[in-house]
């Protein structure tokens, strides 16, 4: 095959990959900028630039509150799981004790739990604790997928750090807690940023628990709010508003992901986290 043909074929494939990946979101942005009957004209390039859908979703109803709820839940989940995971990862990676293999196995197994398997039990527990309809129920429940993952990735990261870095501190008689805080934490911020971001995305996107444990419009998180966005009548699905809401909650994620691209890829491959 002549090189020119090969090269063209290769670049055609590249163009296909880019279009395949980007087009649906591009089209969502396009739709979000249309108002009224413009929605029902199909365009491939932007022709309408109306912000009506954005003002609509941000001023009418409780959507801003839903965004705030999602931020509160996701940030709290990240902070708690990172705090619990750093110390646990230190113990799992730097201290040799009996039963460590079994513990790691358990943590790995929990990370593969289907959410539906704990849904019934968790629902009863949430009700019993009086957390039904409150954001605390979600903060609590989300630990099931953020904690095993953060522990696992941080353990992998810590174990790769050289022995020497803590030897001097051990000789000096520093306690394990001081060692974690003073020696490991400063070295670990890249890993913390990666795992924190992945945990944030997972919490931000979660749907099943959010649908089940919260039944109040004011306390809903963004994914459920978008899923339940409806128009004035049953038949009239407000596509423009839905797309505007979708763009609002997705753009920050995309920006974060593009900024931390390399770190995320390494974190994903180290932790094998689900998408």
């Amino acid at each position: 095959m002549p090189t020119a043909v090969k090269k063209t074929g290769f670049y055609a494939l590249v163009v296909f990959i880019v279009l395949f990946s980007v087009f649906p979101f591009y089209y969502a942005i396009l739709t979000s900028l249309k108002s009224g009957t413009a929605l029902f004209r199909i365009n491939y390039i932007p022709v309408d630039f109306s912000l009506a859908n954005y003002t609509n979703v941000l001023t009418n109803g409780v959507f801003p509150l839903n965004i705030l709820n999602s931020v509160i839940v996701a940030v709290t989940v990240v902070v708690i799981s990172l705090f619990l995971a750093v110390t646990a990862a230190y113990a799992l990676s730097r201290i040799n004790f009996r039963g460590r293999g079994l513990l790691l196995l358990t943590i790995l197994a929990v990370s593969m739990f289907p959410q539906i398997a704990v849904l019934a039990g968790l629902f009863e527990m949430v009700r019993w604790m009086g957390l039904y309809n409150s954001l605390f129920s979600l903060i609590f429940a989300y630990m099931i997928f953020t904690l095993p993952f953060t522990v696992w990735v941080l353990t992998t990261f810590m174990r790769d750090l050289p022995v020497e870095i803590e030897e001097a501190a051990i000789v000096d008689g520093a306690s394990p807690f001081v060692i974690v805080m003073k020696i490991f934490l400063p070295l670990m911020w890249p890993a913390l940023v990666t795992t924190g971001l992945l945990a944030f995305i997972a919490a931000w996107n979660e749907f099943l628990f959010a649908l089940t444990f919260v039944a109040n419009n004011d306390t809903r998180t963004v994914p459920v709010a978008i899923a339940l966005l409806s128009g004035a009548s049953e038949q009239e699905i407000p596509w423009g508003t839905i797309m505007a809401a979708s763009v609002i909650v997705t753009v920050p994620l995309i920006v974060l992901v593009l900024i931390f691209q390399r770190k995320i890829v390494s974190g994903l491959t180290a932790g094998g986290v689900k998408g």
Partner: protein
Amino acid sequence: MTNVTIGAPPTDKAMAAEKRPATRSKLSRQRLRSAWIFLTPMLIVLALVAGWPLVETIYYSFTNASLSNIAGAEWVGLRNYYEYVDYGDGEGEYFGLFFDSQWWNAVWNTVYYSAISVSIETVLGLVFALVLNAEFKGRSFVRAAVLIPWAIPTIVSAKMWAWMMNDQFGILNDMLMTVGLISAPVAWTANPDTAMWAVIIVDVWKTTPFMALLILAGLQMVPGDVYEAAKIDGIHPVEVFWKVTLPLIRPAILVAVIFRALDALRVFDLIYVLTPNNTDTKTMSVFAQENLFQFDKFAYGSAASTFLFLVIAMITLLYIKVAKLDLGGGR
């Protein structure tokens, strides 16, 4: 974080000093104690959020719990799974999850969806990974573009595609009609023949990047001199791919496939939003959720959840065996 094998086993060189008998003293006892102090909070949270609820779900599957009366649930044995009701005249009927055709329909849907979407994602992910592994202008741009579907929340992608697949105003029908692949608009998400394919298309779009990244990590582990040697020997690139590259990245692909399969088997949100109340796409998770919270058959839904858990547990065990995880910490 240069480590690319998923679930790399935590081994520890750090322990070398501690293993010497001379130092196995006060110091190591102190470290041992703090290890458990460090682990306890995490273990308590995991027990509360995963262990106990799982036990409860399994327990409810053997009771007659209903949504309004969970606390007063009574033990009914296997009745949610299997029950024979004798009508007294020599006739009788079987009831329970094992005899529920809707449940087996959901099982079939789940298996069908998982098998097809994971297969397509693997092949497409491999193609993406090979492209991203090649050197070309604008590679970092393509790599960034590929990450976008992964970053988009599942609910948002479901809605985006629902709009693109709209039967009257959807751009997908417009595209396919312009190209001439279809002659009349298709109601992708409502038509029984296409509903499952609509779900698969969205899933493939959303998770191929993840697959590609995992396979790419495997590709980057292949040492460059392997290709050098093949080139010097004049072996055709296609042959190099089949005989050299593929065997070398097979472990990475296998692990990625199992991860994706586990994920696909528990699918809920995509189907719940893209094709609501559609028996053609209803999966095991959707079936369980419906029974738990919409049909007031809490115990029955728990039985379905338990069944799904067992399936996933078996595949997880398989994964741990296949990936040969070294969890003993070096030995």
